[in-house]
């Protein structure tokens, strides 16, 4: 298997503080409204009625930090009408701003909402895995910023050997669609993709 760099997030440690999201915006100088990394607050479950008293039952809440997954099957690259999207030898998927015509087709296709249109540059942009830092042997800004040390970064096979292969926490889509280069460590309430009874609680932040 070719080299594939990937992100890791431990959902036990993530508190939903969004330091990663802010570090990303800062590092890549993103305008208002463009969030390459986003933290989804996901909640669900119901209360049960016991002798007229409502008692919390299987109520749960957790946060999922996600960005471009630099997928093994990048649907963005497949649908892009130009040669703007490419995958490097180390697996990083990049959009070339000089070639992108801003047709937004990739954002229709990517199930992770990763490509986001930059109204100032008039092109599509997305997480570039801080490839400039990576090329210098450093780690992406989000990974470094996490105060809980919930994130990690490295070759996918190494991360999988260390942390497992789970890549389907709800509200993220089924990982079969694009085979994302990501590993999540579930916590004890984490639901899987396709879970029907949960909802996003911070829509206005996404």
């Amino acid at each position: 298997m070719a080299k594939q760099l990937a992100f890791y997030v431990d959902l036990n440690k993530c508190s939903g503080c969004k330091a990663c999201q802010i570090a990303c915006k800062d590092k890549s100088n993103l305008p208002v409204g463009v969030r390459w990394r986003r933290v989804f607050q996901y909640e669900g479950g119901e209360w049960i009625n016991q002798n007229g008293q409502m008692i919390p039952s299987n109520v749960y809440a957790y946060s999922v930090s996600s960005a471009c997954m630099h997928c093994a099957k990048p649907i963005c690259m497949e649908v892009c009408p130009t040669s703007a999207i490419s995958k490097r030898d180390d697996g990083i998927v990049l959009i070339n701003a000089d070639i992108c015509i801003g047709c937004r087709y990739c954002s229709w296709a990517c199930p992770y909402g990763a490509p986001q249109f930059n109204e100032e540059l008039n092109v599509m942009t997305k997480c570039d895995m801080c490839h400039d830092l990576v090329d210098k042997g450093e780690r992406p800004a989000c990974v470094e910023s996490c105060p809980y040390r919930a994130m990690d970064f490295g070759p996918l096979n190494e991360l999988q050997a260390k942390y497992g292969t789970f890549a389907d926490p709800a509200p993220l889509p089924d990982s079969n669609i694009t085979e994302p280069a990501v590993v999540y460590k579930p916590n004890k309430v984490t639901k899987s993709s396709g879970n029907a009874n949960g909802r996003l609680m911070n829509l206005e932040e996404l």
Partner: protein
Amino acid sequence: MDTREWALLAFTILGQTAAGLMIVLMIVRTYIAAKAGNDLADRLTNRPLYIVVPVMAVAFIASLFHLGSPLHIVRAVPNIGSSWLSREVVFAVIFMVFAALYTFLQWRKVGSLGLRIAIGWITVLLAAAYIYAMGMVYMITTQPAWNTIATPINFVIGSLLLGTLGMAAGLIAGGHKAEETNIVHTVLQALAIAAIVLLGIEFIVLPIFMAYLATQGGAALQSLNMMVGSYGVAFFFRLLLLFVGAGVLAAYLYRNASIAEKEKTLASLAYSAFALALVSEVLGRFIFYASHYRIGI
């Protein structure tokens, strides 16, 4: 919907009209040639032909308003290996080049009859490929309301409908001599029947498609709710206008075409049928773009 999406809407509808018209036009041309000779066939079909390229040109101009950075196109290498959007654009361009060539040959009567007919049919094949690619653009696995066979079918039916009624309008608008009335009326009747058949197919596909969305749940169901909920009024008018244009008016067109000396009535019927179908297609495309939900986040 913002400007960019209206631009996309204009590009697809105008492109469909131009390509659909080209296809129907060549069929009509072949029919008239067989019945009344090539000279008349050329004369009656050249007028509608002259609008194909201008309509396509406007479509291209509209498409630029959809793009964030249209100037980057000069640096962009098309990704025809895997992208249907790329294929759509490539087919659109080649279609327009051939349509322009055919129009020029017909206009100046350059080239032998055989050559002109061959170029005409090549243009038809390109038009068909273009329409097919246009529909396939929306077959994205993460867009359940688009990713059904109903999408390419709708694009094909829509194109043929606009082409059929556009041809009827173009044919009658071109004018004809008294001794040509018979053949013109026969063609108009055939076009009217074609429109009614296309309407019938559309009305069969649509309920099946909606029932399918309902059974899928998730993003597909959300789209369905959007279509009949928030856009319910637009959806109703889309169907109503389609029914009146391609059904009722087409039926009147058929009836009046059996009576001689009804040219004025026929013209009004053909124009309004085309206009209603066009508005209906615009509404339909508007709903199509406005009510899709992507899988995921």
